[in-house]
């Protein structure tokens, strides 16, 4: 019998029909579609028991309390801690993603040594090599050995100073934003040093903001905005850009970019002339003081700042010298502080309005705080104040600073052969310029202290470590110990857990002082004086509590005496000359544009665009996909300016300043004043869209990188 081709076809046909009526095709169809629902390369969230823990956000000096949701001990979500003092459950966008930082794609996993000349990169190295190289540099350098502490006030700062105290030419450097914040400048305006000052937001009923990002990174934005909504706080905002703070303010008064000083001086003159000056305001040579302010007539203010007399009068009239009014400058965490003269002019208003002792209070000093260890032996200085080319070895710890330090400013301070060591969990920002990068613990992996904002009542929270930091992480104290050993310095702190010891010391000091209150969410606040032992304080802080100092009720450094008016000044008792020459500050003209630059570049972006470590991958995503924040490579320009300068948005443009130029895209934005360019600061090396960082165009004297003369040409 012959099986024909036809028979074979029949067999196949039968097979085909049979297959259709069997599970084969349908099961394969179904299983392959289920496979698409279960692709092995898409991660499945791990299961586990859910719990909630309280901790602190370490990213910036606002040190907000956070409620962390954990699954099997792993943090999966971070939200603001309700009932927390000064914050009321608020948390910014950066804080909402802080738990992702241990997995930042640029996380440093090992000590890195800089290699290459033209296009430098890094290669992994051992900690021993790093210690050897740094110790050798410290031994051999002719220049200053310094540690840049981006977040002063931590107990770690005490360890830094203690390490440096073993050598002659050393200092601790702090970023300009810390020394040029509002309260440190106000402190300097006094004849006698009143000690650290703080704004008491709970009693303030009116804020006069001078480009201060009150709702965008200054101090406690959540508290400010909630009090505004409760109708308990009025905000007058003088600012060139219609920022988010300006938008939400009760009154926004647009000014010409960079003329905060002129407005403040003009306002001061108005207050003086209308006699609405606090009786508490005292000044030895009142005549000279008045004379200094006399040139700032409304007409001149209008010419310089563009604020007309009626508006200025209106604001002045609304500012009764009740002591509950406070003027704040402060600058932008990303765009940097205001120049000293500007901030000083603003702070004079606080003196005139009698804020001292009411809206502004003195912080009680804390004896034996380990954070202040060796402060008599090692100077703390503004980075901008050290001579150029003087720093031989600089160990920079800018992690969790919440402030920007432009590289050109730092670069000028380094000696020609100087060694820059960066302690950082993430390879970004200044670390990219370092010769050595030492990996430190990222947020949420190690317990540490989180001191509060320099302008607000002193506070302390503890950040918890949730996930293990990993073996590669170097404890800064351990690094100092190894360096000490290599240098043959006898050191007190010889164990890696020195931080714990120092924390215990600090808590003992706090407890001994018996000052302030400890707030724990969901419980009644407890006065420090009523707590039995430092250990109890520690456990309360570990449970997410917040200690906050009680402000001295009347901490006025100036006794009342002088009333506004020519006659009385003669009879006032002789007093030492007031602050360093306010008259000179007043006499100094406002910045102004440099020849050839017809525009201003305003750099901002709030706390979320400061140091690279502050940005979780999700925050970067939200930035990348929403364009809500100003970007480094996008120049936001007023539509009228776009039209008059022919700035076509689809081209690339070169924004030049006296220090250099970067290429940007143009985006028309009606909230930017004509003739100005608004751009965001950008942590360096963080993201692909980064075409250049406006912060790097900073003036070399370090006075400002917030406002720069600029011009635009086609790239």
């Amino acid at each position, binding site marked *: 019998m012959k099986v024909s081709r036809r028979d074979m076809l029949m067999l196949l046909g039968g097979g085909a029909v049979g297959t259709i009526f069997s599970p084969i095709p349908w099961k394969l169809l179904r299983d392959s579609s289920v496979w698409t629902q279960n692709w092995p390369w898409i991660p499945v969230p*791990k299961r586990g028991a859910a719990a909630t823990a309280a901790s602190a956000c370490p990213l910036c000096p606002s040190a907000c309390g956070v409620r962390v949701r954990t699954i099997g001990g792993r943090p999966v979500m971070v*939200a603001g801690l309700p009932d927390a003092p000064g914050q009321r459950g608020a948390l910014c966008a950066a804080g909402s*993603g802080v*738990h992702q930082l241990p997995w930042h794609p640029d996380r440093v996993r090992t000590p890195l040594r800089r290699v290459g000349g033209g296009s430098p990169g890094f290669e992994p190295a051992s900690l021993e090599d790093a210690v050897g190289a740094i110790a050798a540099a410290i031994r051999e350098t002719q220049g200053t050995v310094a540690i840049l502490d981006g977040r002063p006030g931590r107990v770690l700062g005490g360890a830094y100073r203690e390490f440096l105290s073993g050598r002659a030419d050393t200092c601790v450097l702090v970023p300009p934003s810390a020394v040029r914040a509002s309260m440190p400048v106000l402190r300097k305006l006094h004849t006698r040093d009143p000690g650290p000052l703080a704004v008491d937001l709970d009693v303030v009923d009116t804020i006069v903001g001078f480009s201060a990002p009150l709702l965008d990174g200054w101090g406690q*934005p959540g508290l400010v905005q909630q009090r505004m909504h409760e109708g308990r706080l009025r905000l007058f905002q003088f600012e060139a850009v219609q920022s988010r703070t300006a938008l939400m303010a009760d009154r926004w008064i647009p000014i010409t970019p960079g003329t905060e000083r002129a407005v403040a001086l003009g306002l001061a003159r108005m207050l003086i002339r209308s006699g609405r000056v606090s009786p508490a305001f005292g000044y030895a040579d009142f005549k000279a003081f008045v004379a200094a302010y006399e040139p700032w007539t409304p007409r001149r203010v209008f010419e310089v700042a563009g604020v007309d007399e009626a508006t200025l009068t209106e604001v002045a009239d609304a500012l009764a010298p009740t002591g509950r009014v406070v003027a704040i400058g402060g600058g932008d965490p990303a765009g940097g502080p205001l120049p000293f003269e500007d901030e000083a002019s603003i702070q004079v208003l606080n003196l005139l309005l009698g804020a001292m002792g009411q809206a502004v209070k003195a912080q009680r000093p804390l004896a034996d705080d380990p954070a202040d260890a060796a402060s008599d032996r090692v100077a703390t200085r503004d980075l901008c104040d050290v001579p150029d080319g003087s720093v031989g070895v600089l160990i920079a710890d800018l992690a969790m600073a919440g402030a920007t330090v432009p590289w050109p400013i730092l670069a000028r301070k380094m000696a020609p052969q100087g060694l820059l060591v960066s302690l950082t969990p993430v390879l970004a920002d200044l670390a990219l310029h370092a010769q050595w990068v030492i990996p430190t613990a990222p947020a949420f992996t190690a317990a540490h202290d989180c001191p509060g904002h320099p302008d607000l009542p002193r506070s302390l929270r503890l950040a918890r470590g949730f996930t293990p930091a990993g073996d590669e992480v170097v404890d800064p104290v351990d690094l100092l110990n190894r360096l000490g050993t290599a240098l043959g310095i006898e050191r007190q702190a010889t164990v890696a857990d020195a931080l714990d010891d120092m924390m215990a010391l600090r808590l003992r000091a706090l407890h001994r002082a018996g000052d302030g209150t400890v707030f724990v969410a969901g419980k009644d606040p407890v006065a420090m004086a009523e707590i039995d032992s430092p250990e109890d304080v520690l456990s309360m802080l570990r449970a997410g509590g917040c200690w906050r100092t009680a402000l001295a009720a009347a901490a006025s450094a100036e006794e009342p005496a002088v009333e506004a008016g020519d006659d009385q000044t003669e009879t006032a008792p002789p007093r030492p000359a007031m602050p360093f020459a306010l008259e000179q500050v007043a006499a100094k003209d406002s910045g102004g544009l440099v020849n050839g630059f017809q525009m201003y570049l305003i750099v901002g972006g709030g706390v979320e665009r400061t140091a690279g470590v502050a940005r979780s991958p999700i925050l970067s995503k939200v930035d990348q996909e*929403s364009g809500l*924040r100003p970007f480094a490579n996008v120049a936001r320009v007023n539509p009228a300016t776009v039209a008059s300068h022919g700035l076509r948005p689809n081209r690339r443009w070169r924004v030049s300043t006296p220090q250099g130029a970067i290429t940007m895209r143009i985006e028309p934005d009606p909230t930017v004043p004509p003739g100005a360019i608004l751009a965001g600061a950008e942590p360096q090396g963080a993201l692909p869209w980064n075409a250049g960082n406006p912060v790097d165009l900073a003036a070399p004297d370090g006075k400002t990188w917030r406002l720069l003369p600029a011009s635009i040409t086609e790239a």
Partner: protein
Amino acid sequence: MSGPKETPQGASRYGMVIDLDRCNGCGACMVACAVENNVAPAPQRANDRNGITLLRVFPMRNGRDYPESRQVFVPMTCQQCDAPPCESVCPQHAVEFDWTTGIVAQIPVRCLGCRYCMVACPYHARAFNWWDPEWPEGMESTLNPDISTRSRGVAEKCNFCHHRRQVARERAAHEGREVREDEYQPACVEACPVGAIVFGDLNDPDSAVAKVYEAPDAFAFLDKLGTKPKIRYRSRQEWVHAMARQGVPEKEVTRG
């Protein structure tokens, strides 16, 4: 459409009111939303047009120039319409109007990725997974097990953090009681630092949201389309209301 007519007695109808005069555009809600819903970090080429941003804050401007320019920030997400245009167009029931909660449910594992729902949605509230989600190594340990991760090729949108309701209901059932209003709040509501968002059950006259839902200064976007959105916005600024009513803006943006 399995609209509200099927709604059984005692069902919930969740809604939201967002106060535009309070929102300062900080973006914490966007971050919280992405974190809560296991949204992956952005691929390099992702932008405002192709990223997974389930909740996006748009600036809305009054069209005037500096210094008369004003803007409000409009957090825009799925408006949870009572008559959702996206539901009836889905060819295979991957979108469903949940008659027990009023939430427009989007089930990614049923979705075939035709994107018709995205075309149908006038609020541009849906996002498509153009990329496979990718997390930096180790970061998948921060994922929320209460909600699944999505693969590439499917559409997704805001479900009012419905998984939080599941968790709250489970806990309440375990303790033998009803769910309290504060137990079920979406991540954006929880994250808003200024309390601009109020969320709750509109069927419960005592809920915080029901009290402001009918406020005279409350309005819904595109309500004339007949979508009956359950998210309303509030503002005391007249231009905001006028803007919400008016037509098409001018600028054209090309990318490709």
